[in-house]
């Protein structure tokens, strides 16, 4: 780093007259504006508060996506802008979304909001012809019965995450599972995804425990967790605690010496700082420079959404939302997203096909789909809702 600092100073002092700077896109022929709509979530009080989620989770990814698109766009006379509308937890998301759309219509929307907000947004007459990217809600129902024709999903569904983890467990032959489920709705949803996935890949949940919020694990973990996990035999403990409330205290406190996975321990994630292969270091570095923190799954989903629009505009050289949307959904669309292969969207429910990293806090352990899980068309479709089981009707 010191070399660069010295070099930079030198550069500015002596060489700037030599610098050749590409002309700014003063006369951009295609100008794309993307609306970033977020409904911030109230963070519940948690026992484990070492890693509080950042307030700009998602937003920074969208910003980086715009920057990446703009760098490419410079050469093609295409410009990109992000309009940011962020609704606080207590605010009325739909009212503010309507107001934002009344001020100026939006062809492309990156939504980082809970499932019900997303559905309300997608059902507005104002967004009928828009393309909405869901970068915030992992709910599987949004990819099934409650899918929408104007919505694509860049965030993996809970079904995809659960399937990714389950493939790993089956491969390891850790097929006897104890499931500890938290009390919140999202914990139950992830627990349900894990149960379905266990059934799909022939693992068995031999014991189930519900976590109540009464114990203070900082004091009592060593006493309470062993007794909770004492009365069964299992190869692995799966935790469903999306808010990160108690899950961290399960590790190393189980009655049997067993690994912990799920929302803590070995985690299936859309993205994580431990992902470094496939050129991902570059993305991680670029992100850190912009955001001053590590890139997270929602950041990645928002970035992938903005990059999808950019890739389509680059290849199609048009601002026509219908043409671009058709191209993004179509068979020719391919996006390089630092997961080792070209990615595209599932035609039956608009979910971005993607490998799922399995990580712990310090390293990447595996990348699902695991080898050996075969599929007649794409092994990526062994994760989440596959074509034959879709209940999504786009129209």
């Amino acid at each position: 780093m010191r070399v660069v600092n010295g070099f930079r100073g030198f550069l500015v002092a002596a060489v700037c007259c030599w610098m050749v700077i590409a002309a700014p896109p003063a006369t951009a022929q295609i100008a794309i504006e993307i609306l970033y709509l977020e409904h911030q979530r109230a963070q519940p009080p948690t026992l484990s508060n070492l890693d509080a989620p950042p307030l700009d989770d998602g937003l920074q990814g969208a910003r980086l996506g715009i920057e990446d698109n703009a760098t490419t766009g410079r050469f093609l006379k295409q410009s990109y802008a992000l309009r940011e509308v962020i609704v606080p937890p207590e605010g009325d998301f739909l009212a503010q979304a309507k107001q934002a759309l009344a001020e100026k219509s939006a062809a492309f929307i990156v939504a980082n909001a809970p499932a019900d907000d997303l559905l309300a947004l997608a059902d507005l007459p104002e967004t009928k012809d828009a393309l909405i990217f869901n970068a915030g809600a992992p709910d599987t129902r949004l990819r099934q019965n409650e899918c929408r024709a104007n919505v694509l999903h860049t965030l993996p569904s809970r079904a995809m995450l659960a399937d990714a983890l389950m493939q790993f467990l089956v491969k390891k032959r850790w097929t006897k599972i104890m499931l500890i489920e938290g009390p919140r709705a999202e914990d139950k949803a992830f627990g349900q995804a894990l149960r379905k996935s266990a059934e799909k890949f022939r693992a068995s949940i031999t014991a189930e425990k519900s976590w109540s919020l009464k114990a203070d694990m900082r004091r009592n973990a060593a006493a309470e967790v062993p007794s909770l996990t004492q009365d069964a035999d299992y190869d692995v403990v799966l935790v469903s605690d999306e808010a990160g409330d108690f899950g961290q205290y399960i590790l190393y406190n189980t009655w049997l010496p067993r690994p912990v996975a799920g929302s803590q321990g070995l985690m299936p994630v859309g993205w994580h700082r431990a992902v470094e292969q496939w050129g991902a270091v570059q993305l991680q570095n670029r992100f850190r420079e912009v955001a001053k923190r590590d890139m997270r799954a929602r950041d990645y989903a928002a970035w992938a959404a903005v990059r999808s629009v950019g890739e389509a505009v680059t290849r199609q050289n048009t601002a026509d939302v219908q043409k671009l949307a058709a191209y993004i959904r179509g068979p020719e669309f391919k996006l390089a997203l630092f997961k080792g292969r070209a990615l595209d969207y599932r035609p039956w429910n608009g979910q971005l096909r993607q490998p799922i990293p399995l990580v712990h806090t310090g390293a990447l352990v595996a990348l699902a789909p695991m080898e050996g899980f075969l599929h007649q068309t794409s092994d990526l479709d062994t994760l989440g809702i596959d074509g034959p089981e879709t209940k999504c009707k786009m129209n």
Partner: protein
Amino acid sequence: MRLGILCALALAIATSGPAHAHLLYVTNEKDDTVSIIDTKTLEVVDTISVGERPRGITLSKDKTKLYVCASDSDTVQVLDVKTNKILYELPSGEDPEQFALHPDGGLLFIANEDDAVTTIVDTQTRTVVAQIDVGVEPEGMAVSPDGKWAITTSETTNMVHWIDVAERKLVHNSLVDQRPRHAEFDPDGKRLWVSSEIGGTVTVFDVESKKEIKKISFSLPGISQDRVQPVGIRLTRDGSLAFVALGPSNHVAVVDAKTYEIKDYLLVGRRVWHMAFTPEEDLLFTTNGVSGDVSVVDVNALKVIKTIKVGRYPWGAEILPTN
């Protein structure tokens, strides 16, 4: 088929004689070292420490120095090939990944991956003479044999950037398939070859018109198309063959550079990145990132004859001729 190979092998033995002893330098990305291999004994003779995350490596035109991109040290290190000691460092801009030397030996063109610029460094005065804005994640770098064109490929922008060397100006951009990683000119400078890692193709351009003349796809029986990811390209001096490293498919494609037909796929180590020929072009060495080794290809027989263990994540390869 087998008879053909046997004949080729016999011919190779009859015509090539004993292999010459040159030195192959291999950068080990995750070991911060360079492995030196004797091309006659095919053994590692030395391992030297360099800066952090060494990747691109190239020999000076007078064959006395090696330039090494130490990406995470944000510098280009200059290695004395007699002593294998680092003489000095060149300013390089941030995160230099690949570079190419101008045929006159004076200017070094460096792709700065984290900065979306191409840096031009004068290797004599050791100063930056220009920085040119290019696309996101510039990686591939090539200079045409006549010294007129410098090419940068940008991985996330998916473009080939044509830089007019005399003007020091970007004059043209060509879109290619996803994640273009490497650019290589024909020995006669008429064509430019560009590999697209995620797109899975190699695009060949006519340099004069800058128009695409061919897109080559690869297909290996029993290997998922997802894993066919072209990276490094090397062409023989007579312009008859192109070797294309296909990344995690663990194969190198042998392409007839005239008809663009694929003649063969050679099984090498895991995740093959880049390659280097001996001056006689009797041997080709491939760096295999994941398996941490170098495969040795007999170019005449089109056979892999040996695997040599090197450091962790070998990336770039360059030959120092000893004759």
